[in-house]
């Protein structure tokens, strides 16, 4: 059962901004608890073209060259059901989806 609705700020990497035709930062409305899974569910619901670009269609695993950062922490290896930091849940800080620096 979801709690109060929260506005979460998400910063997308350049290629996903152009794909979804949005600016650097988007906002999603989700119920508590605020988790990576809920953020991505909401993000993909609003921008269906992002399905499969951040996590696998079937396994829902994070794509290997992407990372999740927030509040100067690397959250990539946390479970996607772990509550995000309060500062993200309150909209004070964004969740950053980062493409690994891997050339190209």
């Amino acid at each position, binding site marked *: 059962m979801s709690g109060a609705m929260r506005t979460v700020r998400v910063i997308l*990497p*350049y*290629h*996903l901004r*152009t*794909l979804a035709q949005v600016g650097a930062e988007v906002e999603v409305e989700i119920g508590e608890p605020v988790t990576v899974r809920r953020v991505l569910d909401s993000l993909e619901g609003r921008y269906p*073209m992002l*399905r*499969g*670009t*951040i996590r696998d*269609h*079937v396994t829902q695993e994070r*794509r290997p*060259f*992407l990372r999740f950062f927030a509040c100067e922490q690397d959250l990539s290896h946390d479970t996607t059901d772990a509550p995000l930091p309060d500062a993200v849940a309150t909209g004070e800080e964004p969740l950053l989806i980062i*493409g*690994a620096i*891997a050339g*190209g």
Partner: protein
Amino acid sequence: MSTVRVLVGTRKGAFILTSDGKRKDWQVSGPLFTGWEIYHLKGSPADPNRLYASQSSGWFGQQIQRSEDGGANWAPVGNRFTYEGVPGTHQWYDGTAHPWEFKRVWHLEPSLGDPDLVYAGVEDAALFKSSDGGATWEELAGLRGHDTGPQWQPGAGGMCLHTIILDPSNAERMYIAISAAGAFRTDNGGKSWKPINKGLVSNFIPNPTAEVGHCVHHVAMHRERPGVLFMQKHWDVMRSDDAGESWQEVSGNLPTDFGFVIDVHAHEPETLYVVPIKSDSEHFPPEGKLRVYRSRTGGNEWEALTKGLPQKDCYVNVLRDAMAVDSLDACGVYFGTTGGQVYASADAGDNWTPIVRDLPAVLSVEVQTLT
């Protein structure tokens, strides 16, 4: 007056080049999908303003884009490519079993008659079909499920299904090719498949004449001669006159029979084009001379076409899907290089000119002749 539209896929986006039928002055639009790899774009023969593009990235995966207006506007459609059932394994480079994993779409082949029907050849090798304009995709799993599937292995570029040829005289028949498994044919609309590799000889596999394991680089067919196929293999240029049941080598007097592209003249079914590449270890033209070779005899006898092409210090490659022809008279021939040039000939190969020369590395070239 006719218009020619050249669809160019590159490592960092797509470009569309247009000209009138004189094919002298070209307008370049793009880049589209900037920064993404565009392995292939192709228009529907039934509705030439319906275009499909394969957009992919090692970071963000696969997208399929569709345009309804000849490439001015695009929208992403379905990108869910899921193997049917338990994917199983194929051979890895070291001979061990490796699970099938979807990586990207190499080639999109729209139906000859239905703009909403399109096929996708993917890595790891499989064939997918969409009947709703790319919104949803289903695997034609009879191909990957062939008894030989566990023996298929990747070539240097990955285990890709890169060639899809639809038979205009028989809606149930199509041909595909996989690096490095070989060529296959279906006669029942994709339900079941038959390896068609008899006559191929590949010295990099334990049995050089095995049923599968051949690194076929590309196959071409003239639409008025659907049983006649031409193949550029890893080494050797081959032809089949019996729908792939048997192959004969037609490399003849080529300076090297390694290469990637092969295509057929639009109006002369026995006129072929290849771009010989030095070797599998040195992917550039022999002697630093970029030469297209043309055969007017269906192979074996080849002439070098050099006018307008660099004849010294040229070390680009021409990849497997990067040659196409238009259907004007005289036939126009086009190819793109890893150095970012797209060369065109408006006289069947006698004279060439770069119609754009500083793009990212070219992965594919397709041509639409619009009247």
